[in-house]
C-alpha cells in the first residue's frame, strides 16, 4: 500500500504532517507528564478553550498578537490550576484532569457559545494552511520541530530531565535525593497548558475557525501516541524520539489507509490494536525475561544444593 502512487507525492506528505500537528504538539509535554507517572486529560479541552478565546478576542477587535499572548497566558493559568490541585492537595491527576477536561470545555462554551468565528486575517490563516517556502513542510509543523528539539534536550540532557525520570521511577527515592517534585510537576502541567493553548491557536488558523467544540476527543489521540511511543503507564520510562516516531507512524498509517479508501472505523480498529500491542509486547517480554531469570536462579540454587550435598 505504501507503493500507492499518490503516497510519495510532496503534496501528500505536506497533508500527512499537517494532519497531526496539534496532537503532536500536545503529546510533547504529555510524554514528560506520563514519565513522572501522572497524566493530563484536559489537553484537548484546553485547545478548545484557547481556540474559542482567540475567536472572541478577535471579534472584540483586539490585536492578534495580544490575543495570542492572552490565550497562552490563560493556558498557563489553566495548567497551573491542574498542577495546584494535583500537587497541593495530592489528588490523583487522572481524576483532576477528567474534571478539568469538562471544566475547560465548559469555559469554551461560555466564551463562544454555539457561535463560530471565522474571519481571521489572511496572514495568520496563510500561516496555518501554508508551507515553509521551497519545502513541503507545513508552517505550523515548524513549531513542532522546534518544540520537539527543546523537549528532547530538556528530557535527555538536563537535570530537569533526570529529575523527571527519577520521579517516575520512584517518587520517594527522588524526593530524598533532593528533587523538588511539587515544583517539577507544577512546571510540567503549566507547560502542558501553554502548549495545548498553542495547539488551539494553530488549530484556529489551520481551519480559520474558532469554535468551542474544536479538537473534541484529541486528548485520546495524544495519549495513544505517547503510549505507543514507548512511554510506560507506570512512569519512569520513555523517550522524546520514541514519541516523535510513534506520531509519525500513526500519521503515516492514517494517511495510507485513507488513501486506500479504508473506512474510518477500520482505521480506528487499526490504531487501537496497535496501541494494545505496543503496551502488551514490552510487558510480555519483561515477564518472559523475569521467568527466565527465575528459572536460571533455581538451576543455580539446585546446582549449589547438589554441590553441598556431595560435600
Amino acid at each position, binding site marked *: 500500500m505504501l507503493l500507492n502512487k499518490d503516497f510519495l507525492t510532496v503534496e501528500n506528505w505536506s*497533508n500527512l504532517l499537517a494532519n497531526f500537528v496539534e496532537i503532536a504538539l500536545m503529546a510533547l509535554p504529555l510524554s514528560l507528564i506520563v514519565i513522572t507517572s501522572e497524566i493530563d486529560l484536559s489537553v484537548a479541552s484546553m485547545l478548545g478553550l484557547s481556540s474559542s478565546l482567540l475567536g472572541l478576542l478577535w471579534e472584540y477587535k483586539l490585536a492578534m498578537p495580544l490575543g495570542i499572548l492572552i490565550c497562552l497566558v490563560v493556558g498557563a493559568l489553566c495548567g497551573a490550576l491542574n498542577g495546584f490541585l494535583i500537587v497541593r492537595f495530592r489528588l490523583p491527576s487522572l481524576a483532576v484532569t477528567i474534571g478539568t477536561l469538562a471544566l475547560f470545555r465548559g469555559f469554551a462554551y461560555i466564551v463562544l457559545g454555539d457561535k463560530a468565528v471565522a474571519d481571521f486575517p489572511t496572514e495568520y490563516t496563510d500561516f496555518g*494552511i501554508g508551507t515553509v517556502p521551497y519545502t513541503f513542510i507545513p508552517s505550523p509543523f515548524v513549531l513542532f520541530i522546534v518544540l520537539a528539539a527543546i523537549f528532547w534536550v530538556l528530557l535527555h540532557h538536563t537535570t530537569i530531565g533526570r529529575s523527571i525520570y527519577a520521579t517516575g521511577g520512584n517518587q520517594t527515592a527522588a524526593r530524598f535525593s533532593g528533587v523538588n517534585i511539587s515544583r517539577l510537576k507544577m512546571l510540567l502541567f503549566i507547560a502542558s497548558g501553554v502548549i495545548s493553548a498553542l495547539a488551539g491557536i494553530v488549530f484556529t488558523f489551520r481551519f480559520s475557525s474558532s*469554535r468551542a467544540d*474544536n479538537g473534541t476527543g484529541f486528548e485520546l489521540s495524544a495519549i495513544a501516541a505517547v503510549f505507543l511511543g514507548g512511554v510506560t503507564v507506570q512512569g519512569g520510562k520513555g523517550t522524546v524520539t520514541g514519541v516523535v516516531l510513534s506520531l509519525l507512524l500513526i500519521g503515516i498509517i492514517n494517511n495510507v489507509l485513507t488513501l486506500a479508501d479504508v473506512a474510518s472505523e477500520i482505521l480506528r480498529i487499526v490504531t487501537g490494536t496497535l496501541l494494545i500491542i505496543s503496551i502488551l509486547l514490552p510487558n510480555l517480554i519483561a515477564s518472559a525475561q523475569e521467568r527466565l531469570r527465575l528459572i536460571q536462579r533455581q538451576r543455580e540454587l539446585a546446582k549449589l544444593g547438589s554441590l553441598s550435598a556431595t560435600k
Partner: protein
Amino acid sequence: MNIPMIKYSLIRIVVIVCALTSVGPVSYGQDKPIKKDLKFTAIPKNVNNPYMVIQSGGAVDACKELGIECKVVGPSETGASAQVPYINTAITQHQNAILIAANDPNALVPYLKKAMSQKITVVTLDSDTAPEGRTVFINQASAEGIGQSLVQTLAKEIGNSGDFAILSATPNATNQNTWIKYMQEELKKPDYKDMKLVKIAYGNDEDQKSFTETQGLLQAYPNLKGIISPTSVGIAAAARYISTSPYKGKVALTGLGTPNQLREFVKDGTIKEFELWNPADVGYLAAYAAAQIASGNMQGKEGETFAAGKLGNRTVGKDGVVLLGPPTVFNADNIDKFNF
C-alpha cells in the same frame, strides 16, 4: 468571401441552429453528454449516521446511472476538522468532484478552495459552506417552503379553524426559528383567520422534555386542535404521548420527522401526515449537479438549468443554491415505501 459576407453567413448559421434546436421537445441540458471516466468522492458529515447513509446512497445511485465511479468516505466523528483529511485525499487522488455535507461552514473553505483550484468540482449538500468554498449548494428545502407547507398540512386536518401550538427544539435553534417565522408569515393569509397559534413550547430536542411539554400543552389548552412540531425529536415524543392519551384522534399532529420513527404513529392514526425531504434525493441531485459541472455543461451560475435524471430539471438560484423542491409528504399510503 469578404468579411461582411463571413459575418452574414455566421449569423445565418446561428439562426438556423437556433431554429433547429427550438424545434422538437424542449431540451435544457439533457442532450449534453456527461464525460466518461469521471471519479467522485462523496463525504458525508459522518459515516455511520443513518440519515447520511441514505443521502450518500442517493448520490451513489445517480453516479451509477451516469457511469461515474463514486466512493463514499468520511470521518466517524463530526468535528469541524474531521473532514479535511478526506478532502485532501480526494485532491491527492485527482477526483473530478467532491460532494460534501459540511460539518463546519468555514473550517473546510480553505481546503475546498484548494480542491477547486485543481479543477475539482465542489458541490455541498445538506449543510453548506461559505459560498466561496463550493460551486453549488443543494438545499434540501427552502425555509419558506417548509413553514408554508406545515401550516397548510395542519390547516387541512383541522378544517382551517381552531387553536394550535408549536413544539419546537431549543429557543435559539436557527433552523426551527426560521421555519416558525415563515409559519407565522403564512398564518397572516386570510385563509387562516380562524386559526390561532396559542403557544410555542420548547422541548429542547430532548425526548423526555418534549414529551412533558406536549402533556403540558394539552392540559393548559383544552381547546387545542393541533400541534406542529418542526423537529424529529419533538414530533416523535409528541406522537408517543398523544397515542396513549385520550387526545388521540382529537388533536392533529404534524411536523418534520423520519418515516422509520413515525411509522407506527401513522399506522395507529395519531399522525395523518408529516413531512420531510427525501435525503436520497438530496444526494442524487448533488451527484447530477456535480456531473453536469464536471462535464463542462454548466458553471453553476444563477439561472442555469440542468437535467437531474428522475428529478427532472433544476435551476441554479441565487448564490449557487439549487433547491430540491417541496418536502415529501408522508402518510399511511406511502410511508412503507421509505426506509430511513
